[in-house]
């Protein structure tokens, strides 16, 4: 069985990190632990795009000594991109050990709307479930209620739920690396 180590890249609300761990333990029935946060990743800052290169941050996170049976989930407030795309909500190694989620575009303020902490947390959880699912080998799901469905806009993210559908749960159970799930 694998466990999930949770960290932050740059400053992130501590309460959010704690609530994420609680959700992961409840939803995936796995162990979680907090590890030391990393500083704001200036090495990954792209001056032309004014964003942070997600692939470079992921590469840096690989050096975290988490152990082979542990997935590392990083949360950040910086706006992420991959070179081909204008932005990403998060990124993960498919069937690998690293996943990162950015809250930058999950804030209502990013869309010129009044802040909403509860909504921010719900969105964060959905994106965390999506990226950690990729780390467990899940690909995008056609069930639009499932957090593993692809969301390229905040509206799509808001439509989906925060618990895996039956198919993805079954696939996760089949995976050797999977946490012990009770469906």
């Amino acid at each position, binding site marked *: 069985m694998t466990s999930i180590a949770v960290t932050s890249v740059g400053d992130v609300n501590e309460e959010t990190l704690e609530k994420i761990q609680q959700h992961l333990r409840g939803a995936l029935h796995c162990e979680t632990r907090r590890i030391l946060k990393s500083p704001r990743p200036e090495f990954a800052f792209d001056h032309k*795009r004014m964003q942070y*290169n*997600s*692939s470079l941050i992921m590469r840096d996170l690989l050096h975290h000594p988490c152990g082979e049976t542990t997935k590392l989930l990083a949360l950040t407030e910086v706006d992420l*991109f*991959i*070179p*081909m*795309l*204008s*932005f*990403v909500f998060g*990124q*993960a*190694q*498919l069937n690998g050990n690293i996943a990162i989620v950015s809250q930058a575009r999950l804030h209502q303020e990013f869309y010129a709307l009044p802040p909403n902490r509860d909504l921010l947390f719900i969105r964060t959880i959905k994106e965390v479930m999506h990226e950690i699912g*990729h780390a467990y080998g899940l*690909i*995008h799901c056609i069930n639009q209620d499932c957090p593993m469905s*692809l969301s*390229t*806009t905040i509206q799509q993210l808001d439509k989906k739920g925060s618990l895996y559908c039956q198919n993805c749960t079954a696939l996760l159970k089949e995976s050797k690396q999977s946490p012990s799930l009770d469906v």
Partner: protein
Amino acid sequence: METQWDILVVDDEEVMRESLAAWLREDGYAVDTASSGREAIAKTKIKDYAIYFVDLKMPGGIDGIETMMEIKHLHEDTSIIIITAYATVDTAIAAMKEGAQEYIVKPCNPEEISLLVNRIIKVKNLQRENTILRKKLTQQYSFQDIISKNSKMHDIFQLINEIASLRSTVLIHGESGTGKELIARAIHFSGDRSQKPFVSVSCAALAETLLESELFGHEKGAFTGASSQKKGKFELADEGTIFLDEIGDISTKLQMDLLRVLQEKSFYRVGGSEEVHVDVRVIAATNVNLEDAVREGQFRDDLFYRLNVINIILPPLRERREDIPLLAKNFIERLSHELSKNVADISENALKILLDYDWPGNVRELENAVERAIVTCKGRILTEEDFSFLCHNGKRKNGWHAPTNMTLAEAEKEIIAATIHRTNGNIKEAAIILGIDRSTLYDRIKRYGIER
């Protein structure tokens, strides 16, 4: 079952191609990468990718457009998305002109790229589904190598299944080009003789003495030039099937010999005294009415009754017009491959021409017409222009006045002689123009004493 689609990402920048590949893999696609145009072309030669993402500007001699052209040359139906950091109208036009399906500027919106890939895959799924359905439909209408959805033909297919493993002789009656030999083959290959020889003989193509030697073989010295013993078609077909085409054209003597084989299951080689025993199933075919020939004393009635144990009457193509589109598409698929042409389909207007035509030469004439159209076709779809020769034939018919002062046989002789003259004695070409097979033409030449 969902099809696994493969994607190739071609970009000289590692971070660019790997990040795009990783993003596409999360969507469930099998993604390969190539760092140059040359590597992409090499991979394309091994694998057929559904979608290519090709960076426009790449060093190393082959840029994105050249890479795309080479890929298109190898897999014409593939979808190529050109990606570039520099959006200019000229390069966009150049890429689209050379066959790029889409043109995107990096970095692009995740939604844009996701919709793009989904749209292409949706079309590819539909195309694949269409191909599978068409194949299933053809299989549904095919029996051995014969394609038809006509009810009379389906009754024949059922009859073939019932009689395939019997030893009874079969007499197939049908106009030239209706596929009499195909029916004979279907009977042979559906039955328990299928692993044994199937031997076909055109009785009209040979003179009597030659035909006798061909059928029964000859001993050494049986006639001038018989320098060694030779087995005849009956011996070669032992335990299998012999197909005697144009049976109505054999001489009285051969009719007697054939009757003996059918009764005794044995015969003598020409010039031989030793009886040869064989186990051969006889399937005969004719395009003339043998009952009339019997009535006129041209054909032995006892042989007719021996042959006519099971009777199959093949309808002409004009009586099963519903098969024309099915047959035409089947010929296109087979012949475009054989002729190394890239013709994939036929237009509605061209099909209308085929449906309106009377096809005196039946399926063989249709096959020849499709072949001629494929040879001259410039595009991927056969159009009405490609079948204009059929319309010309029709016009000529309209302006032609039938002679009223000669017998039908005289008219036939005149037409055949004129056609052979026109083709400078080329029998194959003359047979195609006349819409009859070569053996029928040889028979008429012999019957009317036409000079070649």
